[in-house]
Structure formats: C-alpha cells, structure tokens
C-alpha cells in the first residue's frame, strides 16, 4: 500500500496534493475568479424565469382576491356581468372562452393533420419545404392583424354568405331558428372561432409535421411491404406511433386558443352573459379583460377583471402543462 503510494507520487499530474511543494503550483489562471460568479449569474437568470411565473400567479391571486372573496362561488356560476350595479360573474366569459377554443380546435385539427400528412408523406420533396415555411409564416402574423382582417374582411363575408342565408332559410319556431339567431353582422362566436382556428392551425401543423418525421422509415416500409395503401399506413401504423404526441399537439393548440386576446376581441362582438347560440355575440375571459381593464370603473371591477385573469391562467396552465408533458414523453 505504502510502496504503491510512494511509487505513484512521481506520476501525480497535479502537484497541489503534495503539501509544501508550492514552487510547482501553476499560477492561478487569469479570470478564474469569475467562474463561480458567472455560474451564479446564469443560475439567477434561470431562477428569474421561475420567479416571473410565480410572481404572475401571486399577483393575479392578490389582485383578484377582493372580487373572489366578495362574490364567493357565485363568481364562477353567475352569468351577470354588470359594471353599473357592480355585480360580476365569470360564467359567461368562461363559457365563451371554452366554446370558441373547442370549436376552433375542432375546425383546425383535421386541417392541421391533413397538412402535416401531406407534407411528410405525399408531397414532392422539392416543394414540401417552401410550403412548410409558408404555413409557418401564418404563425408569425401578429394577432392584431388577424383581428383587423377578421373584423373588416372576414366578418362581412361571413354575414352575407353564411349567416344571412341560414337565417332566411330557418323555419320559424324550429331548432335551426334558435341556433342561427343573432345580429347578422358577422361579429359572433362562430366567426371568432374560425379566426382562432386559422391562428392555431400553423402551430399545430408544424408540431405535427415534426412528430410525423420522427416515425422511423422502417415502420413505414414494413407496412408498405405488407401491401398497405398510404391511407392504411397513416391510419394504422403512423397515427398509433405518435398518439401521445398528437394529444400533446391538441392541448398545445387549445392552450393557444384559450389565451388568444386581440383577434377574438375584434370579432366576437363583446356581449356579456351566457351565449345562447354560436351565432350570438359573446365574450371570452381575455377579450373582457382587454376591453374593460383600462376603463374599469371601480376597485371591485378591476379586481373582478384580474380574477378573470386568474381563471384564465389556471385553465391555460393546466392545458399547456399537460401538452408539454405529453409532448416530451414522445421521444423526438
């Protein structure tokens, strides 16, 4: 043991371990003192990100508390939103948010799947990339531009070619009449949902495309080798392979739709209360906040709006967290 140690001494690369041999110590490297400070700076930046999310929740909770404690559970169940009498209930806005988001998702998902499948499976290589880029560019357009386009271009067309004919043809007293009732100006829950679906489409298509590209070629080739048609390959081999990831994509699209503010504010018509038809004007959590916050009449009004923000945060955080968990469990 001793002999081994002493024999090893000569080969020890770092003389620092042998006491008293200071002469062979290398001078400290210039700038080495900054190493721990740099790591600490990086760590603080990462912690700042965490703190910002924490601060967000806490500030919403504090700001919304007066309204929540004043109205109790009725804040979530009442559809009355009346700044004049200072009575606030979030049910109408919550319903508006959920309805627009789910309708948008239902419209966007099949199209997003179609695009992703076409680009990965069927499209000639040479044009697949430009098309993928064009679709992703849709995602870059700011939501206020979608809002203006929706209000001035899409809504009038929608009113003239969809809403009016439907209302004209609905038999009096029938279910259809009730369903299509509303002011035919194109500013309603359905047109907000359609605009939302155009907005979430590129995100979903882009992530789906990435997912599809992770499917190993062997899986595909094996299925083709059995004589499957491309349709059968997609439905029976590829889709099951990326199932978890696809649910993640759905949640991601939903998360985007739930929190979208400006485009919806332009198009939804901004009417409070529980929407009784998808052709009626409505409001979402985000659009109510955007419309009323700077003009809030009193402390309770402001607090109620912040409480809406808290509700929106809880809904979107849950959805987005689920999306990320499902997407990260799918190995890229």
């Amino acid at each position, binding site marked *: 043991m001793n002999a081994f140690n002493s024999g090893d001494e000569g080969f020890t690369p770092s003389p620092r371990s042998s006491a008293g041999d200071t002469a062979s110590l290398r001078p400290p*490297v210039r700038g080495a003192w*900054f*190493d721990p400070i*740099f790591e600490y700076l*990086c*760590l*603080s930046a*990462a912690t*700042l*990100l*965490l703190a*910002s*999310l924490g601060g*967000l929740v806490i*500030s*919403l909770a*504090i700001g919304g508390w007066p309204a929540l404690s004043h109205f109790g559970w009725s804040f979530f169940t009442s559809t009355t939103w009346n700044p004049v009498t200072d009575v606030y209930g979030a049910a109408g806005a919550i319903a508006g948010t959920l309805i627009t988001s789910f309708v948008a998702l239902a419209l966007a998902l*099949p*199209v*997003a*799947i*179609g*695009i992703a499948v*076409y680009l990965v499976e*069927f499209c000639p290589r040479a044009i697949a990339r430009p098309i993928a880029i064009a*679709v992703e*560019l*849709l995602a*870059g*357009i*700011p*939501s*206020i*531009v979608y*809002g*203006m*386009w929706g209000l*001035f271009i899409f809504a009038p067309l929608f009113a003239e070619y969809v809403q009016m004919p439907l209302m004209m043809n609905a038999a009096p007293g029938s279910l259809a009449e009730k369903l299509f009732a509303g002011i035919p100006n194109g500013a309603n829950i359905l047109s907000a949902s359609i605009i939302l679906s155009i907005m979430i*489409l590129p995100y979903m*298509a882009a992530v789906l495309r990435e997912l599809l590209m992770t499917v190993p070629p062997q899986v595909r080739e094996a299925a083709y080798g059995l004589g499957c*048609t*491309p*349709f*059968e390959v*997609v439905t029976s081999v590829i889709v099951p392979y990326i199932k978890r990831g696809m649910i993640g994509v759905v949640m991601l699209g939903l*998360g985007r739709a739930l929190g*979208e*503010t*400006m485009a919806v504010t*332009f198009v939804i018509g901004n009417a409070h209360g529980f929407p009784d038809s998808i052709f009626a004007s409505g409001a979402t959590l985000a659009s109510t*906040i*955007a419309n009323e*916050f*700077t003009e809030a009449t009193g402390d309770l009004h402001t607090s109620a709006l912040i409480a809406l*923000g808290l509700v929106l*945060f809880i809904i979107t*955080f849950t959805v*987005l*967290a689920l999306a*990320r968990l499902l997407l990260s469990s799918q190995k890229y």
Partner: protein
Amino acid sequence: MLGRDFLRNLVNRLFITACLLATVAAITALVFILWSLVVQGIGGIDLDVFTKDTPPPGSEGGLLNAMVGSLMMCAMAMAIAIIVGILAGTWLAEYGGHTRYGAVVRFLNDVLLSAPSILVGLFVYELLVRPFEGFSGYAGAVALAFLATPIVTRTTEDILNLQSHALREAGIALGTPKWLVTRKIIWRAAGAGLLTGGLLGFARISGETAPLLFTALNNQFFSADMTKPMASLPAVIFQFALSAYDDWRRLAWAGALIIAVVVLSINIIVRFIAREKKHA
C-alpha cells in the same frame, strides 16, 4: 376481392386529395390575408405615415410617435430578454440542465412560451403600474421582455446543446476557465443561432398588443419619455381600427401592413440564417 381493393384504392385517393385540399386551404388563407392587408394598407402608406404623429380624427397625420414608441419599448425589452435569456439558456445547457431544478425551469419556460400575453400585461400592471401610480413606457418594455425571454432562453439552450463537446474540451484543456470557454468559444460558435433567438423574440413582441394595453397605455402625442404613457404601433392600430373614423381606419390598415411586413421579413431572415448555417 376486386371490389374490396377498389374500395381501398378509392379511400386512399380520397384521403390524399383531402390532405392536398387542407394544404391548399392553408396556403389560400395566407395569400388571402396578405393580399387584403396589402390592398387595404398600401393606400394609407405615404411619407406622412413616417413623419407625422397620430392625428385627431378628421385631420392629416401619421404614425411616427407610435413607431418610435414601439421601437424604444421593443429595444429595451430585447436588451433585457437577451441578457436574461442567454444567461438562463446557458445555465440550462452548460450547468444545471440535467438536475431536477433544471428540468423544472425548462418545463415552466416551455409553458411560459405559450402563456397568454394578456396575463403578462395584468402582472406587470400589478407589479409596476399600480405601485408607481402611472402607466409608463418602462412598464410596457418590461411586459414585452417577459414575453421575449422564454423564446431567447429556449433557442439559446437548443443551440448550445448542438455545439460539439470537442470545442468545450479543447478550451478546458488549455486551462481556460469555464466561463471564458463559454463566452469566447461556445457563444461565438453559436453566434448565428443566438441571433436567431433574438430575432424570433423580437418578431414575437413587435406585434404584441394585449400586454401593452395596461402597461404603456397609449399616447396621442410624441413622447420619448419612458416614464410616461407611450404610444405603440399595435395599441394605436387597436384604437384606430375600432373607431368610426375613416382616416383613422386607413392609418390602422397602414400600421397593420407595416407590422406584418416587419414580422414576416424577420421570420424569413431567420430561416435564411438557419439555412446558411446548415450549408456551412
């Protein structure tokens, strides 16, 4: 048997056609949106837009104060976002990304990436506007920084993870302290990628409206004082578009066209940089 195969083929054809139609529909939507934006916006774009301030209804004017306000707030927001984002991304990639805490940070950063921007507006209102009793350009910049930082963090981490270990080892072997290896070798090698992250963050915040509504508010007049309410292009578009005045609406379309052109160009430049990188 023939009948079944015929059916299979038919279903297959229909499926491929449906996929093609979906793609065509998305491209059509893009073209339609851009086309109507150009048609509506181009008429409002003249020299006045870039040289005059926002007018009261019924008189001549431009968007100068809004553009200056947007630029100042975005620049300040990006300065914050790039410093915090690159450091946080570096920590995730070089130091603590593999730890449990690192996993939490990464996860919540991903959630922040798509968090509703209006909530950030409310948060900054509670943080900076209410305590200091006034809307300000600084509050607007901070709100935008909250939105851009997760994007910069994410791209920084991704790009740094792509750099080869040999680079790091070569630096360490020379006895260089780790922070110098990171700064002088890794950051430099990842330069184009880091720039991409910054540009993407800028593209995202330059069109953001919701977080500015309750932080920077708006300002009818020219102001470069960031302690006061400040005009921004998206907020002015929002106000003008929903007004009943034709000349205000024309300016709103012109502003929307300007923002869309800026954002789309940045996105195209980013792709160009990414492609150059791949070829190099």
